[in-house]
């Protein structure tokens, strides 16, 4: 049996799944000031009466690190950053204890200026004086040559609790994002470690001795041990949970638009032949642009509880949420109230909704029912128009080869899967006002927790080789070897796959069902004078995000029952 748990802003959803289907579902109220209690009470309720030994997998998706970042509740972190030619690293300052230092590496990974160890020791002393225990070290082009980051690490390693190195995060080029991501990893490390260790301990007390898994923003999970070095990867896993909960119900040969309609926001994303579309570089959270692999999602300020008002004679929905719907005792009319008026929903106080909408109806000179229709249709249209914009943005993504430009895949979803909110009502209206086919995801109120439960372990490996310099490197895997001149892209792919398999197993993958694929494979001849001096090879491979093997029946049963 598998437990999936997803902490949302309002509710924490927990499911227990067996090969026969959904065994049990639980909803507890989320207490943002005490997530630990929310998680634990959810786990307690779901395991009531279940033999611990029957549970062999627990996947958690929480808002812990996301909240910490949004609220900037950070411990002191010391950052050491070296730039070299280009933009001034001071422009990317992440926090107070941020020190640009000398030393630089160029785009091929060649040293231009060495590290000044005296300078580093001086800064280390200052960090100690400030009682800093966590340090981030980031150099420009460290993914081409991590030597400087490693040298600085050697100087610092015995003096601090944990040191985060930029090249270990991702093999992608982007110095400012590498700085931000390294900082965030260091900044959320203590809270992440403390929280999950506590969860693990509580579970052990109940006899549940198995490594917990944590959902990542890319819709895959990793075990707790692997998460310790990259706690930042757990941010914004909520939208990923919902998308993974929809995967099984999307088409195998078509694009599907996923809409998770919450109280405050609607999160949208795309599945292409059942595989979620990933953000090409990394997720953004608040003012932080990162290298954290994630689904390509768009969050807009329109949801079931968005405040509805009339401004200059025009209807306005969102972006604020001032509370729940009137029908549930909230302060202002919302799209949910419109559904009550239209008798699409009936588990609250319809009278309050009608009274609330009457004011708006007067201003619009419509009947209360027509006003409700108008509000709901307006809400649906707004969501759809934002979805169109997202699709256009995805299709406008630049490409860099003639082949890609000519053959480039265009995302053209014809189907919408809705979850959260009153999903079936939204699905019906989407169909009514657009050409999309729309339906609610079965078990739409807990599909997110199901998604968390069934998500695969995912990871990627970025591999780079330069046969003129005779080096091959997978920076994030701590892999650097010397290669011969005849090393080519097929060798690179083979090496990358080996590294990926290792990494996936370490993170908790099932070795029998590793779906690995090549995302990028480019080989350039480096010509100097009139001769080929070497090859420049860039390879990117990944474990395809998707659902774990052997739970197809669950999906069938879910569909049958709903």
């Amino acid at each position, binding site marked *: 049996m598998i437990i999936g748990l997803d902490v949302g802003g309002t509710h924490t959803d927990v499911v227990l799944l067996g090969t026969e289907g959904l065994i049990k579902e639980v909803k507890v109220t989320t207490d943002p000031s005490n997530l630990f209690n929310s998680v634990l009470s959810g786990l307690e309720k779901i395991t009531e009466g279940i033999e611990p030994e029957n549970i062999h997998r627990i996947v958690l998706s929480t808002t812990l690190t996301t909240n910490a970042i949004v609220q900037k509740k950070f411990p002191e972190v010391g950052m050491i950053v070296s*730039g070299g*030619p*280009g*933009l*001034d690293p001071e*422009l990317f300052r992440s926090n107070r204890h941020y020190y640009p230092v000398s030393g630089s590496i*160029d*785009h*091929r990974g060649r040293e*231009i200026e060495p590290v000044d160890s005296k300078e580093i020791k001086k800064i280390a002393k200052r960090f100690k004086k400030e009682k800093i225990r966590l340090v981030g070290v980031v150099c*420009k*082009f460290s993914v*081409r040559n991590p030597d400087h980051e490693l040298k600085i690490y050697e100087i610092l390693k015995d003096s601090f609790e944990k040191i985060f190195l930029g090249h270990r995060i991702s093999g*992608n*080029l*982007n*110095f*400012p*994002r590498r700085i931000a991501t390294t900082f965030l990893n260091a900044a959320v490390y203590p809270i992440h470690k403390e929280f999950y260790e506590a969860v693990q301990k509580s579970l052990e007390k109940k006899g549940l001795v198995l490594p917990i898994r944590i959902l990542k923003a890319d819709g895959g999970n990793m075990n707790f041990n692997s998460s310790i070095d990259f706690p930042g990867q757990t941010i914004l896993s909520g939208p990923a949970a919902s998308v993974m909960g929809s995967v099984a119900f999307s088409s195998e040969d078509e694009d599907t638009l996923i809409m998770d309609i919450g109280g405050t926001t609607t999160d949208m994303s795309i599945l292409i032949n059942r595989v979620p579309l990933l953000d090409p570089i990394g997720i953004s959270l608040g*003012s932080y*642009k990162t290298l954290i692999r994630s689904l390509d999602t768009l969050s807009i300020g329109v949801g079931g509880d968005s405040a509805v008002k009339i401004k200059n004679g025009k209807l306005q929905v969102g972006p604020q949420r001032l509370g729940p719907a009137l029908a549930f005792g909230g302060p202002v009319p919302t799209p949910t109230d419109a559904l009550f008026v239209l008798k699409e929903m009936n588990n609250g106080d319809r009278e309050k909704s009608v009274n609330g909408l009457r004011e708006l109806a007067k201003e619009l000179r419509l009947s209360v029912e027509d006003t409700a229709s108008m509000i709901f249709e307006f809400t649906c249209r707004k969501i759809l128009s934002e979805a169109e914009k997202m699709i256009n943005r995805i299709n*406008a*993504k*630049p*490409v*860099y*080869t*003639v*082949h890609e*430009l*000519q053959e480039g895949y265009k995302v053209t979803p014809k189907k919408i899967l809705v979850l959260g909110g009153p999903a079936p009502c939204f699905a019906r209206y989407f169909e009514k006002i657009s050409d999309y086919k729309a339906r609610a995801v079965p078990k739409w109120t807990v599909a997110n927790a199901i998604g968390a439960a069934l998500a695969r372990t995912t990871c990627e490996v970025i591999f780079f080789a330069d046969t003129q310099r005779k080096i091959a490197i997978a920076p994030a895997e701590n892999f650097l070897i010397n290669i011969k001149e005849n090393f080519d892209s097929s060798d690179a792919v083979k090496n990358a796959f080996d590294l990926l398999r290792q990494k996936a197993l370490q993170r908790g993958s099932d070795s029998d069902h590793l779906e690995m694929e090549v995302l990028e494979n*480019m080989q*350039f*001849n*480096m*010509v100097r*004078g*009139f*001769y*080929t001096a070497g090859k*420049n090879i860039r390879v990117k491979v990944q474990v395809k995000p998707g659902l774990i093997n052997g739970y197809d029946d669950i999906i069938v049963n879910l569909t049958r029952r709903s």
Partner: protein
Amino acid sequence: MIHAKYKTGLVFFPAFDWAISPTHPEREERLLYTQDQVFEEGLFDIEGIEEYKPDLVTVKDVQRVHFCVPDVWNVMTESHFISAGGAKTIGMAVLDRQVEKGFALVRPPGHHAMRVVHGARGFCNVNIEAIMIEFLREAYNIDRVAIVDTDCHHGDGTQDIYWHDPDTLFISIHQDGRTLYPGSGFPNELGGPNALGTTLNIPLPPNTSEDGFLYVIKNVVMPILEDFKPDIIINSAGQDNHFSDPITNMNFSAQGYAALTEMLKPDIAVLEGGYSIEGALPYVNLGIILAMAGIDYSKVKEPAYDPGSIRQTHSVTRMIEKTGEIVLSLWRQRERKKNKILKSKDFDERRRNIFYDTDGIHESQREKIRLCKNCSGAYKIDSTSDLGYHILAVHIPRKGCRECKELGYRWYDSTNEDNFDIAFLQDRTEDKYLEHDFRK
């Protein structure tokens, strides 16, 4: 957070799967390290820097500028449609006011491609700036355009296309033609009789460094631009004046290119040459982008940069100052000279032999233009190449008068299978492009 002072659009199209030949300077690898630098700097994350995906140009966009022999598909590859399309995309983004400035970082380049195209010259097949400009003139309300070509090689293709157009000021700054391909671009090349003076050439001696380039921009180019009052300024931003470029002999730098860009303030820049793909391009492109966007570029210095060791000599400085004076005085005398020629005859003719070094084609041309007081004059080009084509190409200018237009059509209609293989007509007054292939 960094904010661009001027909202800047970029098309980045490195054509990683296209080369003239495997070891040719114009090969897949050319913008690889530039891409690495641009990505590593996180430029596309900067508030106010927008990346655009290039559109392809249409066949009509090409026909608006070129006479392609035997046809457009024979002289262009997909990569040329995209490269010209990248320039067009950026031009539209600027004129639609989505951005204030734009830079098309595309390849292959175009500034050696002339009005008639039999093949590739100087790595260029079609003129991507001219295709962009003529599209913009058709689609937006712009008339006067200034092109400042800062590639190390004389922009002879752009010069040829705008030789007879008084509304396009073409200024080329390049290494002296006596020392470098294509061997042209001297101050006495001033444009055809109807457009005398709106072509200007500023040849610089080998080993010119920052001081020389910036002197010329400040003291020669800027005053002329002020006189001309263009609606937009285009920079053909070749980067082969760099001290590390393998096929030229100049001593320019990333700091210099950025300062030049800051001074010139082009609305649109289009990448041309530049073949020091590791030591120069990553830094020069970065410098140009930052300068366009109004972001501090003071730390953009190539590792081998040592201003002292590449500083130009006094004799170089004196030669540059002298050339500057000559060009300025030619500019001031242009109206007088032009009127004198216009009074002297009704038609002007020139004969030329053109060599397509990249494709090894020889072309010989006979060009005849009507000297006209009311417009920039219809002209026809009788062109043969050693590929065996004999064509007549007739151009009626954008603001062509009735007489010139009628003459153009008469020329076009008088062709037949006895005298030509193909006849072409560009009627820019109606944006109409005709051809008659007599071989069919």
